[in-house]
């Protein structure tokens, strides 16, 4: 019964916060309306959310997000510098990252993370979901890049969303 009334415990507060940001006010009425929407929308869109999202280690997730924000900043400075320095000096390349993640959520989060950080864009996922092809703007050592992606991003995501 609990499952029916509140199918996605994480979605409800998220939707409430989004509603409050959207109306840009913190009045009691809007909090109530936001909670109502956050309760009703997950129920009505139940079919679009087949899997329940479970966060297993919130602290690891928090650390991951902080690392990600820092990396986005540094990556942007790096990419900006490469662009300003001119197209002649960049050494682009494709690298293949073998995936240890299995769930759809984990893979999409990893792909998005890769696209946001160090001069890399996730370009193609193999149909069997075993390999992610990544395009890097400036790559000297493809293996080092793959190792960085794996231990910096994939391992924490795996710990948070897919514990064994």
């Amino acid at each position, binding site marked *: 019964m609990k499952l029916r009334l509140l199918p996605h415990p994480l979605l409800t507060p998220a939707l409430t916060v*989004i509603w409050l*940001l*959207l*109306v*840009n*006010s*913190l009045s009691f009425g809007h909090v109530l309306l936001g909670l109502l929407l956050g309760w009703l929308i997950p129920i009505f869109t139940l079919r679009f959310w087949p899997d329940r999202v479970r966060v297993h280690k919130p602290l690891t997730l928090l650390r991951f997000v902080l690392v990600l924000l820092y990396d*986005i*900043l540094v*990556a*942007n400075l790096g*990419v*900006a510098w490469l*662009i*300003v320095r*001119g*197209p002649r000096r*960049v050494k*682009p*390349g*494709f690298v*293949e990252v073998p995936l240890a993640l299995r769930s759809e959520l984990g893979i999409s989060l990893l*792909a*998005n*993370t*890769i*696209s*946001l950080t160090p*001069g890399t*864009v*996730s*370009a*193609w996922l*193999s*149909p069997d979901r075993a*390999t992610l*092809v990544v*395009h890097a*703007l400036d790559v000297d050592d493809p293996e080092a890049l793959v190792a960085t992606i794996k231990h910096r991003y994939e391992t924490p995501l795996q710990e948070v969303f897919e514990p064994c």
Partner: protein
Amino acid sequence: MLEIILSALILIGALFTFIGSLGLARLEDFYTRLHGPTKATTLGVGSLLIASMVYFSTRGEGLSLHELLVTLFLFITAPVSAHLLAKAALHLRLRSIAPVPQRTEASDPRQANAAEDSATPPQG
């Protein structure tokens, strides 16, 4: 003091927006061009939005946080559109400076069919 921070944020944001678009115009193949707009521009607009958030929150009309929503939205959607664009480019086999891995080309039979379909412009 506040004005200095605001000005700095605005200038940094505009500069990054410009550099992202500069990369789009300047780099040599599609895959490298993809990096400019998806990264630099996203950070640039993010910085501008933070500046706007600070500006409207300190005018004394209460907190203004809905810029956060636009920032969040851009940060979620930019990688998705970049991924789709890269996938479309690989599908169309665009010229690339870097060697393209063989497996990405029509290893999926459904995509191979789609490739043949799109060789002739679809009707309607």
